[in-house]
């Protein structure tokens, strides 16, 4: 019971802070928006090429969004040594991880859901009936990205070159997420039948499961000795 209470408290705290300053969501949102704009400037996109490049552009934008948002997720915790409090508080460390993870995943999903209509608008996509599938892919990839991102955010938050180190550590390890998400999104957009790209979704789900478990376990060592 205490376990779930801790998750709830942490997520409550993150949501409340975010509601008060809107720092994370707004910076993530505008950054992703700028990435999309830059992409549409740098490629002259006719309908056919935009169909091909779309999945890649979407996930580059979301990837950078994740770096901006996730990298800052533990910043508030070190400000007044709150990480130290997490260590000495009699609460399971895995629950603290899950609380932070829940908040991060939620923020990323909110930004993605706001951005997606803009994508449709900018690139003239015809996706109405594909939306449930796309949402599923978003959720699966976002969970994986936040699972790793929360872990590495906690790892890098106390070091000098935080802004550089976070993407350097996160991106190579997140390669399977990007491959899986891009391929699945491509599959959906090009109207393939589900069996053709369901393997990629399975890859994402397996990745999510593995890294949720691994991060849950190793988080103990970050917050505790």
């Amino acid at each position, binding site marked *: 019971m205490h376990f779930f209470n801790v998750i709830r408290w942490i997520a409550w705290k993150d949501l409340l802070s975010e509601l008060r300053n809107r720092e994370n969501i707004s910076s993530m949102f505008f950054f992703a928006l700028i990435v999309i704009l830059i992409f549409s400037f740098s490629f002259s996109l006719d309908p056919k090429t935009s169909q091909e490049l779309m999945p890649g552009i979407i996930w580059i934008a979301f990837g950078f969004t994740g770096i901006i948002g996730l990298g800052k997720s533990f910043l508030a915790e070190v400000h007044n040594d709150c990480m130290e409090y997490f260590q000495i508080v009699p609460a399971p460390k895995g629950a603290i991880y899950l609380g932070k993870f829940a908040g991060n995943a939620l923020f990323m999903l909110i930004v993605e859901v706001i951005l997606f209509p803009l994508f449709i608008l900018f690139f003239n996509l015809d996706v109405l009936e594909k939306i449930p599938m796309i949402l599923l892919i978003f959720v699966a990839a976002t969970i994986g990205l936040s699972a*790793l991102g929360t*872990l590495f955010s906690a*790892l*890098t938050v*106390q*070091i*000098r*070159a935080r802004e550089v*180190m976070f993407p*350097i*550590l996160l991106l*190579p*390890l997140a*390669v*399977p997420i990007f*491959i*899986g998400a891009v*391929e699945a999104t491509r599959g959906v957009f090009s109207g393939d039948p589900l069996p053709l790209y369901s*393997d990629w979704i399975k*890859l994402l789900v*397996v*990745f999510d499961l*593995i*890294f949720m478990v*691994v*991060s849950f376990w*190793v988080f103990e*060592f*970050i917050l505790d*000795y």
Partner: protein
Amino acid sequence: MVASRLIAKLQRYEGWFGIAAGLLIMVGLYMGLVTSSPDYYQGEVVRIMYIHVPAAQSAMFAYTVLFGGSLWYLWKRDPVVDNMCHAAAGIGIFFTAIALVTGSIWAKPTWNTWWTWDPRLISFAIMLLILVGYLMLRTFLEDKEKEATYAAILAIVGFIDLPIIHFSVEWWRTLHQPLSISTRGVSIARDMLIPLLLMSIGFYLLFAYMLMVRTQMLYLQHLLEAKRGRMLSKVHL
């Protein structure tokens, strides 16, 4: 502590590892470069194999040692084990880089390109990135204890991730372009196998030797730092 004593004991035979590695590599080099016959299709460039394959094997072995050492460190918190992990990462980068560069040189005459998006090449490149990230993380952290723990965590997560990365890249390649260039299935003649084997064992031994020297180096560096700072306990040397 157990690990420190074990490593100290092994260090006594350090020289023998070095000598054995040197001899094996020299014989392997002679057989590989002089007595073995060139490949029927690839000609002389096949001789790059005798350095490329052992380097790649040792690089993977280095990462395995790093993974095992990291688990060990998280379990026992022995600073010497941490030094060993640090050393293994440094040497791992070295061997990974050698494997990548020699692979690239080999690819040019055989496939007429310096780089192909081959799953194995990509996995190795990502492994290199992870190891470089590992060393960077270590240099940027000030608290030595945190440095060791965080680095160990990164090594473990990366090690678990590598096979997933490899499979996903392989899958992705086969989807987009059936592997036209097969990197495996080169049947190896006996006069090629023996030098390859010698070089492989030689490189493993060389890795072990380098690991011992480098662990010792890092340990001594820490010790010197501590001694220059404040040392209350007696230092046994």
